């Protein structure tokens, strides 16, 4: 599968995750979010950027439990809980935010 956007072709897998991480840019993130009926706000970007940094450092997308704890530590307790994160990413914070961030599906995510 592929997404055509602004004259660029983005290859994706069967679940809509980017096939090539290096192709990621903010336009494709916004496009994927709109496709899921989400308008990306600063709060969304905070989580997406956090995930991208985590991936850069550890070469994996964290499981949701690990993400929640790490967000709480970095961005404050009021954000490090599943209620807040699910409000931003209703299909699952790790799964959906990773998709918008151009990262693979988190290890162990079914």
């Amino acid at each position: 599968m592929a997404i055509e956007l602004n004259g660029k072709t983005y290859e994706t897998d069967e679940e809509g995750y980017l096939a090539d991480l290096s192709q990621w840019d903010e336009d494709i993130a916004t496009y994927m979010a709109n496709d899921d009926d989400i308008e990306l706000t600063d709060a969304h970007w905070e989580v997406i950027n956090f995930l991208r940094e985590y991936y850069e450092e550890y070469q994996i997308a964290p499981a949701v439990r690990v993400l929640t704890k790490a967000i709480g530590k970095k961005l404050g307790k009021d954000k490090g809980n599943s209620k807040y994160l699910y409000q931003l990413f209703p299909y699952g914070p790790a799964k959906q935010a990773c998709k918008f961030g151009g990262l693979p599906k988190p290890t162990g995510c079914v």
Partner: protein
Amino acid sequence: MSETKKMLYINRNAPYGTIYALEGLEVVLIGAAFEQDVSMAFIGDGVYQILKGQDTSDSDMKNFSPTYNALGDYEVTKLYVEQESLDERGLTVDDLMPLVYEDEDDDWAEKPSIVVLSRTELAGVMAGQDVLFNF
């Protein structure tokens, strides 16, 4: 809630060339979500998995060694390394990545995850487990 089991994942293979190391690591990360008492052992060529300064640019395999640093986040905080296996390969603990975890009960203090044990001591650790997995 079922009772917590002690599970030891035993890593015996070099990181690249086979998929044992990467697959084993993924199983550990997935298994850690089930809140069991998970630890890992590195024996034989398995000690090469946590060697410092890995570079796979000349091969087709991704360098997944940074992922071992994430184990602490997954509450996998006991990484046993066999002293004899290091000795036989001319390695010391200083050749290994300085893997740490943050102790939630001690104001997030960073503590080393790697514990070097003799073959006899490691056999004792194995005997105390409920489940052993070999990779």
